[in-house]
């Protein structure tokens, strides 16, 4: 492929832990091939070279938590032909969306001595609440194989092959013994979006829902069963209100136990 024909890739960061963009650098086997296949035009974590937009594909990490960022994302959208959000922060507001359930001023005074200096919004919101998004890749953090799949799909003009069924499907394919059935360990796998490869059950713990809600999550039925296993309302509230606290079905379920 000639340099001129290469598509340009930009990676943007909003409020986040950097983990999702690091996933890109964690593709050790593919990184150089990727740098060949696309022109990395804007990726501050990896490069000080910055090429001006417009960009063919923008990956956006992080949520919107400041008035400035609410403006900046519009700018990013304008300069991107396709915009894909990556990770729980960008797709659902992330863990920092816990502020949405409290008074952000209380939060500020806990952390900062002089809150007046801090410019922040009362909520942490998904990118899609501010601009149209072409595709959302879930996970806290995203799975690097899925990230590569998204990139290769957009490079090859096809739809990413990212299933939205439950973690249980992956869990069974992997050959895990179900921790909920065999040990009574609470697990969010049945209502959680696949993608991680069911790693938590493979390590003898229940899924904690870091990939967010699956395509048709019956959280109410699962919550009822978890209660029979001994979970309190508080446990349920915490389970559904963590990494994807602001994602619709999880938010509603947590509110039912609040």
């Amino acid at each position, binding site marked *: 492929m000639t340099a001129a024909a290469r598509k340009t890739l930009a990676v943007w960061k909003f409020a986040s832990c950097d983990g999702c963009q690091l996933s890109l650098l964690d593709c050790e086997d593919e990184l150089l091939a990727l740098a060949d296949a696309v022109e990395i035009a804007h990726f501050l974590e990896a490069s000080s070279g910055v090429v001006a937009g417009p960009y063919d594909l923008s990956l956006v990490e992080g949520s919107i938590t400041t008035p400035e960022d609410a403006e900046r994302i519009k700018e990013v959208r304008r300069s991107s032909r396709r915009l894909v959000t990556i990770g729980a922060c960008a797709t659902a507001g992330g863990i920092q969306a816990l502020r949405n359930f409290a008074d952000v001023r209380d939060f500020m005074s806990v952390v900062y001595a002089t809150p007046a200096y801090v410019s922040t919004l009362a909520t942490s919101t998904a990118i899609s609440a501010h601009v149209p998004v072409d595709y959302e890749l879930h996970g806290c953090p995203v799975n690097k194989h899925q990230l590569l799949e998204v990139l290769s799909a957009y490079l*090859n*003009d*096809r*739809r990413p092959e990212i299933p939205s069924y439950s973690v249980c499907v992956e869990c069974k394919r992997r050959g895990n013994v179900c921790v909920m059935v065999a040990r009574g360990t609470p697990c969010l796998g049945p209502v959680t979006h696949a993608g991680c490869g069911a790693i938590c059950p493979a390590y003898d713990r229940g899924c904690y829902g870091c990939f967010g809600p699956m395509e048709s999550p019956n959280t109410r039925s699962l919550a009822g069963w978890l209660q029979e296993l001994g979970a309190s309302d508080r446990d349920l509230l915490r389970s559904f209100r963590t990494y994807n606290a602001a994602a619709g079905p999880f938010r509603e379920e947590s509110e039912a136990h609040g």
Partner: protein
Amino acid sequence: MAEPATASHFLPEPYRVVRRHRETADTWTLDLEPAAGGDALAFAPGQFTMVYAFGAGEVPISLSGDPARPERLVHTVRIAGATTRAICTLDRGGVLGIRGPYGTAWPVDRALGGDLVIAAGGIGLAPLRPALYAALARREELGRVVLLYGGRSPDQLLYGPELERWRAAGVDVHVTVDRAGREWRGPIGVVTTLIERAGFDPERTTALVCGPEVMMRFAAAGFVRAGVGAERVFLSMERNMKCALGQCGRCQLGPVFVCGDGPVFRYSEIEPLLAVPEL
């Protein structure tokens, strides 16, 4: 210990695109020849193949060419998503994977000695064209041959020039569209409305129907109302399918597999299944 007796049915044969023709804004007809040379696979009208586009996916597409001309495979494809886009945007000379043919056929022979009515909606004309070719090949043995064809708008009609040729070859061609501008002379409305004026002898008519599922339900019911026996009405079903071999389980429609028991079904058999939502 048994040796592997069978070659994989999943492995496609490479076919080269030798001609691409744009039918409408989003629909192309592709002529394919085996990349390795030789004759293309033989098929019966109504059958389909699985078409593999490199890295994008594999989808069922009906054969839309003349079954009597074995040197080329013809498919008419409408862009619905990524795989069909990859198929339609392939340049001449590009290679696709083909396996098949699969499924049941339009029973053109059953119509011999009587009338044959073909009702098509939109892309549904593609799977019916081979039936029309087969009928024209035996035109003498048939009574009336009628084509009722409905499209969304005039510019969405397939095979425009051919419609005239069919007319000339003794087919009653009736075309209707959902909407059209002033320049459109023909009728406006759904295909079903054409049934009443088509003028065939219901007692000795065989009807073949293909189009969107709702259209087929109405059209089939229309034929029955017009006096055609439900066992002489045939339609071609669509379901998600990944293998076309009866093994992926996805194309089940109640007790039947669309890929093998169909896609062409007798209305009298399929009607009770069509009536059930989410079956």
